[in-house]
């Protein structure tokens, strides 16, 4: 049975995962527009690539969850995703410059640039949901209930990420500052998951030792 604290941390992590995905997706429009414009097909490219990478991520996360599911792997998704945002911050212009020179049609240009910038980080973020379900589910009967809860928090996160980014973040910060914020938050989530895991383990171990000692005494 999973500890209540771990359960809360995982749900919060899934919420922030959903939030981050939509923050990056919305900024995608901003990032691509200097090279490919803000025509409707630029959004088409971005949404296509996000949906595609999420679908790959779900599949990969689900597969991974069958092999020794544990919070350490779960935490690594956040940490890896955080590092995969760096190329968007530092190499976006270089990547888009190359694509712009080779591909004349901005539809395919924006599609290829989206693949280069967003496919991998979004896929890693997509692994979070199915993996969290595996961590949260302790028996078959309530698996649907857990999945429902998980979709609820992660999609609520996505909704709020969309709203906060488009209404406020772009008004207060620069695009790269928002991306940096996302990096920091994903790292913090990863670290929090690890910390909770080790703390709970330690507590469980000392409790077990205490029990064993008690047994010897009696």
């Amino acid at each position, binding site marked *: 049975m999973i500890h209540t604290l771990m359960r809360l941390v995982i749900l919060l992590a899934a919420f922030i995962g959903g939030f981050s995905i939509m923050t990056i997706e919305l900024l995608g429009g901003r990032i691509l527009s200097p090279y490919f414009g803000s025509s409707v097909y630029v959004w088409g490219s971005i949404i296509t690539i996000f949906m595609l990478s999420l679908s790959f991520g779900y599949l990969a996360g689900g597969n991974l969850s069958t092999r020794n599911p544990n919070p350490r792997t779960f935490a690594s998704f956040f940490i890896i995703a955080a590092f995969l945002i760096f190329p968007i911050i530092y190499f976006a212009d270089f990547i888009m410059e190359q694509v712009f020179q080779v591909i004349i049609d901005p539809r395919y240009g924006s599609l290829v640039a989206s693949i280069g910038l967003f496919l991998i980080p979004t896929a890693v973020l997509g692994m979070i949901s199915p993996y969290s379900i595996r961590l949260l589910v302790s028996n078959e009967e309530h698996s649907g209930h857990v999945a429902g809860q998980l979709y609820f928090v992660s999609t609520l996160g996505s909704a709020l990420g969309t709203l906060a980014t488009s209404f406020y973040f772009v008004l207060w910060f*620069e695009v790269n500052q928002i991306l940096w914020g996302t990096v920091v938050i994903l790292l913090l989530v990863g670290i929090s998951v690890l910390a909770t895991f080790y703390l709970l383990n330690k507590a469980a171990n000392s409790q077990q030792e205490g029990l064993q000692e008690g047994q010897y005494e009696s």
Partner: protein
Amino acid sequence: MKANFKYCLTGRPFLLIAVAILLVVVLPNLAFQSVSAEVIHEQRSLYRDITVVQNGPRRCLIFNVHIGDRNQTCVDINDPEKLVFSYTRMSFAGLLVQPAPQRILVAGLGGGSIPMTLTDLFPDAQIDIVEIDRAVFEVAEDFFFFAENDNMKVTVMDARVFVKRAVLDRVKYDYIVLDAFTGDYIPEHLLTREFLMEVQQIMSPEAVLVANTFSTSRFYDHESVTYQDVFDEFFNFKLPSSGNRIIITSLLPLPQRGELISQAQLFTERLDDYGIPILEYPARLSTSVDWDMSRRVLTDQFSPSNLLRDN
């Protein structure tokens, strides 16, 4: 995130239904309000709803009528040469800085009255027009007497992409008109320092840049500091009767008032046919700073223009 995907499937129809209700309920009401105005054409494009309204001899192009947008551009069908709007006329103040353009770029077609006047005035000049919306191009041709010719061509493309391509191809223009803002929405990537620097790169040394924008709200300050950041100095051209302002700038130092007046005198007669009172313009071209210089410069990293406009 799966629910996200679901949103895409179910959210769109709801939005469409909402828009449809708005159209059905609000549009006829608007039509009744203006007694003699008659809707002669409606077209929904990827970007907006285009409505052509005729009121007596005046025919107007309106974008997004259901959210209360006003006329984008108008013509007098009995006298199509005449420029009906003051801002359209005002954009010809650029001629005071560059009186003999050979290669012209117009970003934003609208009803096409600016490029039509330019090709009329300078038949030998090569004019490139970039317009994002093919439907606007079609409506301009069908209802606003716009026609391409050997020297004047329309490219359906986002202006930013067009300018970036032109930079790569090392094309230079000596007269650039930025007229890409509709009443309801600012293309934010066309108002950043980086974009203006790209425009700078496609300007020949003696080129003039004429930008038609708004004169109201906090956005005015941001836009002004952004132009100032890239071009140092510009003519700020406002008329009390108009909510628009025209920014006129060049790579060379701006001409003195005297030069502007003598240039205006040379043009008076030629521009009279189009109803452009060019002689009144030099006195209104101001270089004095009337905006808050502490505002942030708009960049590709920070360009919430549409959010700033409402403040």
